[in-house]
């Protein structure tokens, strides 16, 4: 059975470097995608990603498991993202070069799938910042409404409303396919 995140973070706080490695490998992809889809360039995403984890390392002495580790982690990520948006505003993530999923060897269907995914990506990109963040926190990080509210410094009602709007817009974009 895997050790819970909170236990690993406490072990790292007490000097166990291996606990942090486990924790990092467990969350690195989700955190990176959350950041990548909120900023313009991959380089900026990498920079923010590194800053987020450095903040985690620096804040280890203050960590107390009052909530899920994930909530604490994405609160730090949210603050870094807000700083970034304040500096330069939000831009789209370039998804054009990414390969679409699917095993179909048919070039026509591949092209259709690629276009559908591009439209979805555009719809995600077109979401207001708060709605997109709520969607990513829910879908990518697996946070609940209450945890999204805690991570973004808002109330549960606002978090739920943002998420509903985001899902509704993305669903509408899919229905146009």
């Amino acid at each position, binding site marked *: 059975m895997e050790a819970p995140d909170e236990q690993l973070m406490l072990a*790292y706080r007490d*000097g*166990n*470097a291996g606990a*942090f*490695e486990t924790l*990092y490998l467990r969350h*690195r*992809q989700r955190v*990176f*995608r959350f950041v*990548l889809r909120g900023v313009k360039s*991959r380089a900026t995403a*990498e920079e923010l*990603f*590194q800053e987020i*984890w*450095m903040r985690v*390392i*620096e804040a*280890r*002495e203050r960590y107390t498991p009052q909530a899920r580790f994930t909530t604490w982690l994405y609160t730090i990520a949210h603050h870094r993202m807000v700083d970034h948006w304040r500096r330069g505003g939000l831009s789209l993530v370039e*998804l054009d070069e*990414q*390969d*679409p*999923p699917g095993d179909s060897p048919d070039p026509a269907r591949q092209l259709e799938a690629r276009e*559908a*995914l591009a439209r*979805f*990506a555009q719809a*995600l990109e077109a979401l207001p910042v708060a709605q997109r963040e709520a969607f990513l926190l*829910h*879908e*990518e990080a697996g946070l*609940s*409404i*209450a945890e999204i509210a805690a991570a973004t410094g808002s109330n549960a009602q606002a978090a*739920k409303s943002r*998420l*509903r709007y985001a*899902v509704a817009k*993305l*669903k509408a974009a*899919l229905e146009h396919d």
Partner: protein
Amino acid sequence: MTDERDPKVSQRYRELAREEPPRELDAGILAASRRAAETRLAPLVPPTGRRRWYFPVAAAAIITLAVAVTLHMERQQLDPEFSGLRSEPPEAKKEPAAAAPPQESPAKPTAPREFARERGGGSRNSQAAKRAAPPAMSQHSQAADAIQQGGSAGARREFGARADESSQPQAVAREAPSGAPARLLGQVAKAQSPEAALERIAELRRQGKHDEADKALAEFRRRYPDYRIAAEMLKKIERP
């Protein structure tokens, strides 16, 4: 937990590329985490377990050392003073048998006196000690000077012995007040209360030892400058 997911939206989102951070970034972050773990910060909470005794034990050791050093310094300051008072001038050495009171020699060899004997405290040491003595300690020396000017050699030795026993005031009470005037003068110098000192000065007046009484009165006024002497007592202690 309220799940606001839409299956189709979630599925399409999962079809987006699964980006990962570069390996170099992983290596850098993990290296930083290991460095931070090796250099732990100071604890923000008080120490527990065995370590919680360190501070009280260290504080107790410091206090004990400070008290011991203070006592040792006080004792070192007292020794030359007493050895100086005990030192006998050359003329006193000529008549040791007549001058020494019988109860003094074996009676109470206090530790400072023994220490002074071992150090061979002579008149030269006595003079040096008088010069080095602080004002509070020099009160005994002033009384001793008064004796040297007007008292006998035996009385000088007596005063020296009495001054040596300054830590034992009850010894004064054992002395007969009708003895030598110098003894009374020594008792004045050693008197624990102003009233007792005045009584002894009055006793000197009654015995007609006005010079000694004057010196004792002067000594009294030095020791108790703010003491208000009653009119009745003033008649007894002032020169008629």
